[in-house]
């Protein structure tokens, strides 16, 4: 069975600094997708970034980028120039290639941003 592990329950970063959130996963599949979702106190799940396993190039979305290490089954999220609005729960998620709907989530990392 696939699993997703986020080993950092909480993280803190100073405003304008950079922070990296860790995620590892376990799967025997070769075709899959990985995601980072943000859940602010409003509880709305917001897709931050996605990565297709077959793509070697790391995904980037503005201040958010990932370090995808397929052999190590690692998928970390880097947030650059952190802003107060980045404070939220961040969930790493895995989905098999045939359907991205069946997401398997990690336990989440609570990110605090200090002014």
């Amino acid at each position: 069975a696939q699993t997703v592990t986020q080993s950092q329950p909480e993280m803190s970063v100073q405003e304008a600094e950079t922070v990296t959130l860790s995620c590892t996963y376990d799967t025997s599949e070769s075709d899959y997708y990985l995601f980072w979702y943000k859940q602010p106190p409003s509880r709305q799940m917001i897709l931050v970034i996605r990565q297709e396993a077959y793509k070697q190039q790391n995904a980037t979305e503005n201040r958010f980028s990932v370090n995808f290490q397929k052999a190590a089954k690692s998928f970390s999220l880097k947030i650059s120039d952190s802003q107060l609005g980045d404070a939220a729960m961040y969930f790493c998620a895995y989905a098999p290639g045939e359907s991205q709907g069946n997401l398997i989530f990690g336990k989440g990392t609570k990110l605090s941003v200090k002014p």
Partner: protein
Amino acid sequence: SAVISQKPSRDICQRGTSLTIQCQVDSQVTMMFWYRQQPGQSLTLIATANQGSEATYESGFVIDKFPISRPNLTFSTLTVSNMSPEDSSIYLCSVETSGASYEQYFGPGTRLTVT
């Protein structure tokens, strides 16, 4: 993208009663999903709902407890039956949009408290 609304946004219910949660999408989608997020926890997939077929339930979830309807391509309901305090959670629906790049979007969630 897809805009998803859920009703109700929150409710407080007595044990033994049932609550039906509605999920409305602003565009036609093939696959809709229902997740549960227990207090302080991550998201767990309850079931996948495709229009015109029976919902597919994940291990640990049964139709008698969580009946789902999917009458058309923009709407779905999840009923939480014979509720107990252990059912207190946030229930989220999500949709998978097809195209050149699959995306998955979440509704704002329904916060259920069972007393």
